[in-house]
């Protein structure tokens, strides 16, 4: 579709931005109470296995994005609708993250600005990105990623130095393994690790295909460690009780930092982190949806679809839920089970097994044909 290529370092940056995106700000895995950070690491294991499945699919069809792989394995008749469902799914996640981001800005900064305006501004900026294509998006990601990681590191250090950290809050460690597992699977597996499904669409663009999967795994481990550290800080500073109730615990934690009555109100860093991560997350999902739709409908110039699709994204993000509580409730109780699990785990696993079976049959056929 596009001639642009991305290199592994750019892929690494994009994965970090996508994985941390909104996850670092919200109270990830807080159902496991003070052991949320363990739940993240437990969830990571499943996530890595899942990504290996995606990687194996990619290796079998190195030139095809997910939508192409589906059609290749299931055939045009069955594959097309499934691929189309994926396109809608990507668009839906883009809308969800956009909503997260806009609400966060309203909560943290602009409490009298209508959501519509903020969403509209973001959509415009993201459309401008996608107009330039994946190459420019990757370069921009490469540019922002160091600042992004630095901000996270800085905020973690500031929390540490503010003297608010109380490790008592983390005890008892690993209180209830059952609770941890229930939190990790499926909640943490699907968000953020399962969202790696989006990269099955981008892996064909990577210039060094052999290193792509390895880079993906590395980036996932790296981001899981950062996520875990952020949650440890959150819980140790304000306690799991507050983390569980606050819509954006990281914001609440950073808000408490006050060093020498000079460094205070540094929650601006948290907002920066969310906006950068959110922007890239929305942009990646939206780009992938755009790619999918233009290949499914054989649109020659995908950039022409950017603004029409942007309009859909804009309205979708506004009508996706009538208020923020509903949005969160959907995101925690319904979406993981009904949408994430089948599309992130079910279908890819099925495809993978099917592809392995056909490979084996093909081999046997060849073998039989050869011996006959």
């Amino acid at each position, binding site marked *: 579709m596009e001639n642009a290529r991305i290199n592994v370092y750019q892929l690494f940056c994009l994965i970090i931005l996508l994985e941390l995106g909104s996850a670092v700000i919200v109270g990830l895995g807080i159902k496991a109470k003070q052991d949320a950070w363990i739940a993240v690491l437990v969830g990571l294991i499943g996530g890595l296995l899942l990504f290996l499945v995606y990687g194996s699919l990619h290796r079998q069809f190195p030139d095809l994005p997910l939508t192409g792989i589906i059609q290749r394995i299931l055939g045009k008749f069955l594959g097309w609708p499934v691929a189309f469902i994926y396109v809608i799914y990507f668009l839906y996640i883009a809308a969800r993250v956009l909503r997260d981001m806009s609400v966060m800005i309203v909560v943290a900064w602009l409490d009298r*600005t209508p959501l519509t305006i903020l969403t509209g501004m973001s959509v415009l900026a993201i459309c401008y*990105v996608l107009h*330039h294509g994946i190459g*420019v998006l990757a*370069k921009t990601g490469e540019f922002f990623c160091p600042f992004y990681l630095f901000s996270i590191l800085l905020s973690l250090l500031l929390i540490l130095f503010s003297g608010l950290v109380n490790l008592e809050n983390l005890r008892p460690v690993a209180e209830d393994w059952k609770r941890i597992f229930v939190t990790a699977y499926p909640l943490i597996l699907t968000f953020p690790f399962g969202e790696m499904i989006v990269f099955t669409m981008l892996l064909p663009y990577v210039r060094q295909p052999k290193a792509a999967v390895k880079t993906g795994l590395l980036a996932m481990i790296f981001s899981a460690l950062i996520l875990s550290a952020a949650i440890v800080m959150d819980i140790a500073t304000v306690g799991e009780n507050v983390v569980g109730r606050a819509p954006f615990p990281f914001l609440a934690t950073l808000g408490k930092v006050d060093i020498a009555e000079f460094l205070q109100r540094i929650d*601006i860093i948290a907002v920066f982190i969310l906006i950068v991560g959110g922007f890239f997350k929305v942009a990646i999902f939206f780009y992938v949806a755009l790619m999918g739709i233009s290949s499914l409908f054989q649109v020659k110039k995908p950039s022409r679809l950017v603004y029409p699709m942007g309009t859909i994204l804009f309205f979708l993000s506004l009508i996706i839920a009538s208020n923020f509580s509903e949005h969160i409730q959907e995101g925690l109780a319904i979406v993981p089970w009904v949408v994430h699990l089948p599309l992130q785990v079910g279908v890819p696993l099925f495809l993978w097994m099917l592809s392995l079976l056909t490979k084996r049959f093909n081999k046997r056929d060849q073998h039989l044909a050869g011996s006959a």
Partner: protein
Amino acid sequence: MRGFFHKDNQQRKENANGLDTSLSKNIERIQEIFYHSSDLIIREIQIGKTEPIKAGIIYIEGLADLPSIHDYIMESLMLDMDETNRKQQNYFDFIKQQVLTIGDIAYISDFDSLIKAILNGGAVILLDQQAQGIHAKAKGWKDRDISEPHSQTLVRGPREGFTETFSTNTSLIRRKIKLPDLCLETYTIGRMTQTEVGIMYIKGTAGEHIVQEVRKRIRSIDMDGVLESAYIEEMIQDHSLTPFPTIYNTERPDVVAAALLEGRVAILTQGTPFVLVVPALFNQFYQSPEDYYHRADISTLIRLLRLLALFIAFLGPSLYVAITTFHQEMLPTPLPVGLAAQREGIPFPAFVEALLMETTFEILREAGIRMPRAVGQAISIVGTVVIGDAAVNAGLASPAMVIVVSITAISSFIIPSYDMSISIRILRFLIMALASSFGLFGIFVGIFALVLHLCSLSSFGVPYTAPFAPFIVSDQRDALFRFPQLGLMFRPHLIRRTKKKHSTFFNPTS
């Protein structure tokens, strides 16, 4: 040479044929072609002692060097020539080899090159009974002396700057790089102005694909006049829809020499001291040549300071407007209280206040550049009154705003490249508008879009944001930091690379 004269002038076209054998006919024709211009000098003389022959010397007053025409052409021909020395030689070869005591000589046989020779300051010698002429290159117009460049001043470093003369400029560069590999290719551009434009590069160091691209773009320029290198810049830049310069220009030979050594290509234009350098990356525009003339540690710090200034020049007023309007809670409590007290009598919102002051400053700055030198004093007096105490006393601006505007203004002067400083000035107003409507979120969206825009730019195929995006580890030695010279022995990655295709040659990790 291409026949420029064929292109647009019907009258000239008819004349574009060989010279006649009759001297008087040739002279008549030249008179006609130049419409009997009064500065066209045609001197008819007789040469030779035993068998005199009629000759004509043609040149334009002021373009050709009179003393050398007198001493080396007329004197040689009329007094010193002794045709008894002529054996079986052609008359022309004889004159060329034994008579004329002038360095650079060429034969011409048609009116096209004759006209070109005359217009370029040469003297043309025609002989009767010969359908040929001699072009003696006796160019001699008045040049400005080499002086210190005005646009980029340094504390330490060479004091010489380019002049308006093409050959002086090329020699200034050659003096610094004594290498036969330093190539100069000259083109004549501009249908009417016939301006010399040269590209200079070091063969083997400059990427062949970049040189090729420069050559291609220069050749494709078709315009009436080239009066400054900006004409060339506008015709060959990669993107025209951007506020950022994608071609670097400088008045300093040392900067051009450094760029050539790094593998870049310089484009020199007759008639301007500003030499273009391509490819130009964002990185170059906040670096100063002085960075390399001081110790590495000092240079690094100064460079970072300059980057900070760039940041302030770009975002200063926007941050002030956003924080005082939307995010007062970010400041320690006494500060917003003080600010509010200052702004008590001011009838405008912070944005209008900032806009008012910024615009006033921009007007002052523009006036300072345009007005005659003699009234220069006035601007500083008026300036201090308008942006200063009087504005505060009049209740038009708060003291804090005056400080913000001043620091922004000073910061914008730190940016070593004037082009980049203009871009930043323009974009500052855009970001201010965003900041006043959406606070920090607006600023962020603006920066995001801007970074993206920067990432989408390229200069002669090299990504504009290199070595940051794509990130090139080895080039970080001379990007934000300036490593000691020992570490700078490697040339920039992207420029050095020699590959044919554009889209694939930025591949830092492979």
